[in-house]
């Protein structure tokens, strides 16, 4: 091939390139029509919107709000590292988002900084309560999951045939251990109140009281929220140690526990976490004795709707058994009515403040 033809080829290619650039600069924004709507935006942490955990729940909350109110449009930005939080939030501020939902205590600093710099911007942050200046518009969404975990503990203790139940977590931090701590408290309460001796494996509560910010203790942890094989291995170990109900607090790792329960045969169950297992994993409903649910989706939905309507109130929202911000939901296993009654009693006692969810209030079974 001669040089001339090659020259023409390259010239053609460059013309195409220049043309594309020209058109792209001249093009109008395709999302212009969305500008008139109320924008609800979520910045996820590194888990992304499909993490089967609170990022996904928050995104579902946004979508649910958009379904309720057709004037709401929704957007998300995932973060690949903590360095992305601040620019992601700022990006949404400059895009004119009506409310920005941030997820998790890791975004505490970035959310607080953005709120202080833009006091009129509405924020909702899941699982965290940042310290911000007066005049800012931040709604902290937090959930006392140890309350529902407590009920889960009673359910597990009432259902076990072997007299041993177990729990494990993804990582040893408070968003996770709060559930486990409540679970252990519920089992101990059951033992004390009904003179049983059900044992719990996988979590030894620390000395003090647990709060949303800190909940110390030691136990079994996978080290992440993704390794289902590890979840299966650990659950099988619990089963071999005599447990027949396992409560994984580790997002999708819990699916490994379901697999282990199937493998172990009849009489082995899983207590699901966060959002109802019989909905998110309907095929395995018969392995779930129940779900210790956390109301991320409804609370996010409510805050977005209020922001769209103009009734948004900054401050703090604490999800409890009382306001259904956390709850025990039953699964696909038959629960005796007597046990349900015991759970209802305990729930009323917690709401009334007469029953403590601190495991240290009850003696541990050796």
């Amino acid at each position, binding site marked *: 091939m001669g040089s001339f033809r090659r020259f023409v080829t390259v010239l053609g290619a460059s013309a195409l390139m220049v043309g594309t650039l020209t058109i792209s600069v001249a093009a109008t924004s395709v999302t212009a029509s969305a500008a008139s709507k109320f924008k609800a935006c979520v910045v996820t942490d590194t888990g992304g919107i499909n993490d089967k955990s609170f990022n996904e729940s928050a995104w579902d909350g946004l979508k649910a709000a958009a379904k309720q109110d057709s004037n709401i449009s929704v957007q998300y*930005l995932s973060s*690949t590292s903590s*360095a992305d939080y601040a*620019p992601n939030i700022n990006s949404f501020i400059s895009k004119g988002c009506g409310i920005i939902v941030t997820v998790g205590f890791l975004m505490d600093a970035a959310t607080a900084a953005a709120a202080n710099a833009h006091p009129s911007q509405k924020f909702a942050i899941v699982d965290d309560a940042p310290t911000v200046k007066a005049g800012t518009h931040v709604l902290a969404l937090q959930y006392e999951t140890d309350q529902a975990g407590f009920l889960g503990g009673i359910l597990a203790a009432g259902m076990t045939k072997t007299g041993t139940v177990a729990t494990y977590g993804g990582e040893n931090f408070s968003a996770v251990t709060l559930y486990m701590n409540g679970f252990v408290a519920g089992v101990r309460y059951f033992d004390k109140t009904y003179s049983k001796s059900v044992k719990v494996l996988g979590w030894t509560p620390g000395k003090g009281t647990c709060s949303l910010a800190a909940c110390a203790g030691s136990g079994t942890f996978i080290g992440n929220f993704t390794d289902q094989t590890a979840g299966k291995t650990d659950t099988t170990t619990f089963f071999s140690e005599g447990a027949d109900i396992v409560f994984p607090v580790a997002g999708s790792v819990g699916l490994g526990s379901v697999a282990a329960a199937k493998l172990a045969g009849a009489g082995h169950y899983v207590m699901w976490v966060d959002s109802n297992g019989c909905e998110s994993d309907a095929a395995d409903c018969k392995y779930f004795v129940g779900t210790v649910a956390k109301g991320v989706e409804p609370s996010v939905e409510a805050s977005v709707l209020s922001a769209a309507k103009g009734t948004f109130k900054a401050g703090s929202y604490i999800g409890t058994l009382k306001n259904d911000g956390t709850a025990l939901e039953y699964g696909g296993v038959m629960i005796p009515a007597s046990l349900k009654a015991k759970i209802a009693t305990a729930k009323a006692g917690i709401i009334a403040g007469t029953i403590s969810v601190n495991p240290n209030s009850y003696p541990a079974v050796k």
Partner: protein
Amino acid sequence: MSEIAPAEIPQGSNEPVDEGPVWARRTSALWVRYTSSSPIVIAALAVFLGLVFGAIIIATTTPAVLDAWRSIFHHWSGLPVAIKVTFDNVGSAYRAIFTGSVVDPQGFWHSLTTGKGWPNTLTPISETFTYATPLVIVSIGVGIAFQTGLFNIGANGQAVIGGIAGAAVGSMLHLPTILHLPLTLLGGIAGGMLCGALPGVLKAYTGAHEVIVTLMFNYVTYAFLLYAVLSTPFQQPGQSNDIGRTMDPSAILAPLFGTKSGLRVSYGVFVAAAVVVFAWWLLDRSSMGFDFRVTGANPAAARASGINGRRVIVVVFLISGGLAGLAGLVQVASTTHYIDGGFLIGNAGIGFTAITVALLGRNRPMGIVWASLLFAALGVGGRNMQASTGIPLDLATVIQSAIVLFVATPVLVKEIFRLRAAPTATVQLATKGWGS
């Protein structure tokens, strides 16, 4: 030596230009220069092809575009609209990448004429530099190892350890800036060096393959990271979550234009610049770097020339690991000022991105600077693209990967653009395979 026919062609001789009018002949002589497959041309064309590839992905995955094309099944008159919708979508995506990573022309004009809104106008380019800074440093570390024929796949783990070590110095000691910042930087370097020395020593004295050791060592460092951010001395006081202590203001790399500007670009760019100068000196001017390059290009000749191969391996791993550690520290000290359990894990693993950046930059310091800026711009601009068009950020990763693919297969690029062989040396892959 056998005679191989093409080798007998004297260098620089090209086919006579015998077609086309005079102007075309002159211009085409110029084109011959620029269409020869020099590595820089290959890299530029690879970037272009990556963008074309991204455009195809956008066009074939955006519902609006697909709907427009579906409509032409009903009536041909929909064709111009379909074409327009395609170009609109691709155009707005790339425009968002550009305005989100370099500058928005409208905002720039506004700032220029009114003198207002400069921080907003400069945010995109500031973000690009913020992300490029640690990437330059770690990629140079990886590139130096590549030039020595060593694969440091563990740069990410070394960056994690460097980040932890530096953040620990920066948060647990309390000193005036003049001492604290240098000590913090040294802490990062020392952490990375420690972590790099191990695979280096194992390789030099037991022959353990560095790819395996460094790769596996990454997992050790991730486990250590979780341990560190969840254990008392380093964990943020009053937290039971996986978050480390916040560094003192005296230890951080402060924003260049002050905290008030909101621009995150920090004094870290000077650290990166110093690393670039150091790497240039090391590779091009120092006798130690000469030893490295000889070892990388021909280990047998290196041995015969009296180069101590073991020492070279250990020293290269110390330098490579030290730079990775410095990069991890720069990342913390210029952005969050604290480390959490997700530090440099997953997509944020700059130590892995560094491998592709070094490849794209052909292991040369300045090449790495350009490649880092490109990758940072795609990431930063990709975020803007997602925020304004809804096209997922992952597209930026797709484009990055496509570019690397094209760079790694120069033959493909040469075929697509029908380039002639380079007048001098043939294009060499930046690395030499998994040899030891």
